């Protein structure tokens, strides 16, 4: 008994550094932001004033907030759906045996390895109206007659940023899914083949259900990430034209650091935090049930 308590105490002691780190770099700043979001505070106005939930109320009546919200939701759903689909296909192909597979696997990861700011700049040049490669290739192929204004056209610019995100992040999805595929025991497929299951049946009866937990975790990670998208949009469009690519992160950044409305800006960050927390809880709950069944 005595020894057990001592061991337990030691175990807790071992957890303290991690705990301090998490509190210091994650919980404390998040709590500070949430606290700040209940205040009216800006750099141009000395002092702060507690105003309760008024900043959140202000968001609900602010068309800029809803615009950023819609754009963020669109960006998140579109990019994650495409990344999952394409990532799954790539993963299935790359799990087959073929010559030089190691090299191809490494090559697929290149976009993921390039810093987003750099690749956003590159894609910004590719989609430049005057001397961009996209217009040149599409015109040479006869697909378009006149140059398109990719990043200057409402309704087009946001899709271009989705494309860049898909290009960049699909390898990450493929990698996670590949890891999931490698955990599925090969003898299941063999048994199914012996029982006469065709390829589609094998895919839907074995691959999909066994892959689902990994898939859910990957989609959750990507959702959380895509929802906070900042660099692609900040570098390529800065939120324009006509606010059509303004997302929650860029909007929050502008309110916090250009307009220096620290209170209102923190409440925007707070809204993102609450949303993402809710998404995480839903996913973790779904996953827990799944794991318990097994």
């Amino acid at each position, binding site marked *: 008994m005595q020894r057990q308590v001592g061991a337990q105490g030691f175990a807790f002691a071992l957890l303290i550094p991690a705990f301090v780190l998490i509190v210091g770099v994650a919980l404390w*700043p*998040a709590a*500070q*932001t949430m606290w*700040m979001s209940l205040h009216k*505070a800006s*750099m*141009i106005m*000395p002092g*702060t004033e507690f105003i309760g939930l008024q900043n959140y109320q202000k968001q609900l009546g602010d068309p*800029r907030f809803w615009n950023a919200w819609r754009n963020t939701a669109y960006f998140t759903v579109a990019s994650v759906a495409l990344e999952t689909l394409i990532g799954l296909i790539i993963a299935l192909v790359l799990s087959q045996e073929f010559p030089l597979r190691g090299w191809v696997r490494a090559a697929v990861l290149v976009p993921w390895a390039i810093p987003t*700011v750099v690749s956003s700049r590159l894609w910004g040049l590719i989609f*430049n*109206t*005057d001397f961009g490669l996209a217009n040149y290739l599409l015109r040479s192929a006869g697909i378009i007659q006149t*140059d398109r*204004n990719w*990043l*200057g*056209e*409402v309704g087009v610019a946001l899709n271009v940023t989705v494309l860049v995100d898909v290009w960049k992040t699909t390898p990450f999805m493929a990698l996670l899914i590949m890891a999931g595929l490698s955990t599925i025991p090969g003898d299941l497929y063999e048994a199914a083949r012996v029982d006469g299951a065709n390829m589609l049946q094998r895919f839907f009866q074995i691959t999909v259900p066994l892959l689902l937990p990994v898939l859910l975790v990957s989609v959750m990670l990507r959702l959380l990430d895509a929802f906070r998208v*900042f*660099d692609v949009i*900040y570098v390529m*469009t*800065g*939120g*324009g*034209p*006509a*606010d*059509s690519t303004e997302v929650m*992160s860029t909007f*929050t*950044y*502008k309110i*916090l*650091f*250009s*307009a*220096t*409305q*620290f209170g209102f*800006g*923190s409440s925007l*960050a707070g809204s993102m935090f609450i949303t993402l927390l809710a998404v995480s809880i839903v996913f973790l709950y779904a996953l827990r049930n799944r794991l318990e069944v097994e």
Partner: protein
Amino acid sequence: MTLTRISRRTIVKAGVGAAVGTTALHLGARRAPAVIRRQGEVKLTFAAIKTFGPDYIAEILGQFEEENPGITVEYIELPTPNNSTEVHTYLVNSLNARNGEPDVFTQDCIWIPEFGGAGLALPLDDFVTDDDKAAYFPGLIENCTWDGKIVAWPWMVDGGFMFYRKDLLDKYSLEAPTSWDELISSAQQVVEGEGNPDLAGFLWQGKQAEVLVCNWVEFLGSAGGSTLDGTTVTINNEAGAKALQLMVDLIYEARVTPEAVLTYDEEPSRIPFTSGNAVFLRNWSYTYGLAQDAAESSVVDKVAYAPLPHFEEGRSTSCLGGYQYGINASSKNPEAAYKLVQFLSSEEIQLKSSLSPGSSSPTRIAVYDAPELKEANPFMASLKDIFTGSTPRPIHPAYPQMSLAMQSGLSSALANQMGVQEALDSIAQQLTDIIG
């Protein structure tokens, strides 16, 4: 002297990461100004943007250290002015930290009321004399004043000009246009006559960014309008509608401006012009130096400049731009910091730093009359009159907030998402809320 480079990326990243930190610091108690240390070595930090012109700051800081034994300067290089959002973020973060770093900084002229009003910039009234003030363009001293106090000190001035291809205009026996109608018809005539599908008529900056507001101030002034009249919002009156309608028509009606301007800030508009693919360009003064530099330009000696055109009821307007010095209110060595500002803004240094083409423009009137400048950089010497009458953007501590509202509304009209009057009314409503 030591040099630290701050890239765009580090600032953006630090900015996002420090979002919480800044706000937390903001709540903290304000520190009383520290006592000046008399003994020993004084170390100053100086955060300055990189200009579009030749680098000279490192060199002159060496001269300052030589002339002022006992003071060393650490130079923090900030990004170029087209990344002004990042520079602003850096200043907001570091000044709010109130730890005295950087001692001296450079700021866009539009942030002066903001930093002055927040008590982050040291008032310089104890240091500067009336004689000092009289040496500069009067509009600039006004620009450096907030609430009756001098809270900044002039470094360089800039303004928007019309650059044009003199060779092409000569070919069609055209004069430099002074009205917008003339500009449109000249641009159309040249573009049609040249038959070059890559040649654009008139480029300017329509990206949803600060520079769009600068362009707007010029179009608006050219129609006789203004954003604010005292504390009344006048942006959505007849002159405003006329100015914004012109911007929209240049793109969709006269078709002398390509839709690509919706993605242009300074450099993306300058590059086609100096590659010979535009007849007219609205841009800052740095364009001229680059246009005359054979490494950057295929139109050397073919470019001329003039004040921007205007409507009958308005006047040619140049948006007042430029960066000015400020001293951190928390600086531990305000006297040494002022010495540095005094040195940097001295006639000697201003002259020295404006001699090579492409350099930024001095703020002291006397420098423009110096024979050395007329000989070495006649373009610069000829700008005196343009800078004397340049028009500032709205002067208000909440200007950055007002700017965001204007950027969004103007961009909506230019992208055909809103009618001209609708966009202006929406901006006016937001501006009234911000000021009120």
